[in-house]
């Protein structure tokens, strides 16, 4: 259990949010030219590291907006929260 600072509503409990997986995955420009392996890499493969991870979260029981979170998966410490489309405030 941890508290997330929603960039729109302020600090709320984690139970109000849902996680949307890894952030900043860029869709390939020409999907038709990719091999099946490369496409599967984009579609399914996600990092699950112990340490600092860039994630998408949705305030599903509040303002229903998406945003990005930089979270340390080993201790659930949140290093930064920023809106969709913004550059990560720490180096990725």
């Amino acid at each position: 259990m941890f508290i997330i600072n929603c960039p729109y509503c302020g600090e709320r409990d984690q139970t109000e949010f849902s996680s949307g997986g890894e952030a900043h995955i860029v869709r390939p420009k020409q999907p038709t030219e990719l091999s099946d392996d490369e496409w599967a890499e984009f579609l399914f493969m996600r990092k699950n590291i112990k340490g600092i991870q860039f994630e998408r979260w949705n305030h599903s029981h509040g303002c229903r907006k998406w945003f990005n979170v930089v979270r340390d998966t080993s201790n659930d410490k949140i290093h930064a929260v920023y809106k969709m489309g913004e550059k990560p405030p720490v180096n990725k």
Partner: protein
Amino acid sequence: MLNFETTLQVSKSYGDLTLSEVEPILKINLRSNKREFSTKIGKLLSIIPPIEANTSSSNEDYSILWLSPDEWLIYSNNKISYEQQNLLEENLFKNISNINQGSVTNVTDHWVMINLKGSKIYDLLSKSSPYDFKNFKMKKGSVAQTLLNHTDVILHNTDDNNLNLFVRRSFSEDLWLWINDSARFL
């Protein structure tokens, strides 16, 4: 013909605490990210949609709650008939939706509004909500969207120890039973 019967229709009180459904009132959901939207609503209802998060603005007839940066909920402070509700909705729809200024959705039958009154309402809500009511109860007019007993609710602080709770119709009976059950133990 739609059946407008409400699910609750009763009022209960437990010592200091009073619970009742307020009905029929108009509820309209507004969505827009257009610049002229605010002034449009101001002209039509003489009320400006709040920009600041978790706040609301009210006049004699209506309250407008902030739900997200581009979404608001309007409800009437007084009971009004369905004929009047339809007229108002039509007026908003003509002046906003029809000219692509945003969307107007009548959610009168989507939300059920329950009024909670009494000094122990925050004790009751804190029993099953992850929300921190410290700032909410201090500031009249604050709005919170959160969970109560695993159900989505919108809370609007209308006065000291007086709040309006919006719950989706299909969940309203379940939440009503939970509220009544919990209120017995306050």
